[in-house]
């Protein structure tokens, strides 16, 4: 019996693919945002509101991850956004190799921001680096205010948590302070933004955040 010391990341291959993607996005000056949430939290609606708000000032593209259907990509294409749909056929997350294939096939024009909308799932996508600049967790107020501590992995990795559907706050029991306190524990320097794609509340601040990150990236400030 031989014991061999390996000391290798299990997802080394995914991480190598993510590094290649990240280098390519850096060379192109494209800001890449990995959106992660439960199904139905409003990721696509947030993107629609974002695209409407940014107008033509910022060139946006999207990679949509779903188990089935082209619906999300179609919704964004209807707004003139170049979008490519990855169908995972049952897999619960996107990996960097899928994103590399999809962006290769999509032949996007030069983009300011590429949104990667992950498969709706708060757990599995957390482990996979997709070459993004940062992860965004979207938590809708109808999901309950206990979620950050129940899913600490994603909420500790997400630079931004978007609390969506805030127009429904008067109708649901959702303690914003409790959520903020959980998020502070998991990600002390993280940003929390409140949005409603329905009323447009908070969309401006979200877009301003994106534009600031884009400016910083192109200036080379971390």
């Amino acid at each position, binding site marked *: 019996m*031989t014991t061999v*010391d*390996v*000391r290798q990341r299990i997802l080394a291959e995914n991480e190598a693919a993510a590094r290649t993607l990240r280098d390519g996005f850096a060379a192109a000056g494209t800001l890449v945002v990995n959106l992660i949430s439960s199904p139905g939290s409003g990721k696509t609606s947030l993107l629609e509101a974002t695209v409407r708000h940014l107008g033509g000032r910022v060139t946006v593209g999207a990679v949509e991850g779903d188990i089935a259907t082209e619906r999300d990509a179609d919704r964004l294409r209807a707004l003139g956004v170049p979008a490519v749909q990855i169908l995972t056929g049952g897999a619960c997350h996107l*990996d960097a190799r899928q994103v590399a294939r999809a962006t290769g096939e999509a032949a996007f024009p030069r983009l300011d921001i590429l949104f990667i909308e992950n498969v709706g799932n708060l757990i599995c996508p*957390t482990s996979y680096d997709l070459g993004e600049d940062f992860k965004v967790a979207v938590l809708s107020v109808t999901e309950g205010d206990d979620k950050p*501590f129940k*899913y*600490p992995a994603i909420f500790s990795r997400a630079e931004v948590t978007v609390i969506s559907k805030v127009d429904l706050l008067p109708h649901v029991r959702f303690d914003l302070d409790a959520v903020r306190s959980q998020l502070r524990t*998991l990600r002390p320097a993280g940003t929390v933004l409140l949005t409603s794609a329905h009323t447009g509340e908070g969309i401006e601040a979200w877009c301003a955040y994106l534009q600031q990150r884009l400016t910083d990236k192109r200036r080379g400030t971390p």
Partner: protein
Amino acid sequence: MHELSIAHEIYRTCRAVVAAHGGGTLAAVRVAVGELTAVEPDLLVFAWEAVVAEGKDHQARLEVEWRQARQFCPACGADKRQAEASWLPLCPDCGGPLQVAGGDDLDILSVEILGPEEES
């Protein structure tokens, strides 16, 4: 359910390690899994058994070393233990906010190989 993809990745890497060491059978693999990786150890072992079931390495064991995230209290300057399966927003001693660190391990630590001459 991404544990299945992860079990596949582990197996591919282990097979390459076995081949690089002159071939043989995989006897055991030791991996580290951090609390903040969103990987469930029991499901990973279950997925591993499914991955190796059909081949020559069907007896290979997967041993998971579970690594907890640290909850650090900057006010006390010390790590604080969290209660089992609980996320404490505040330090149990001084009541200050805790910081979370580590727990992102997802590594293959070592493999045990039965060389071709040891195989029965």
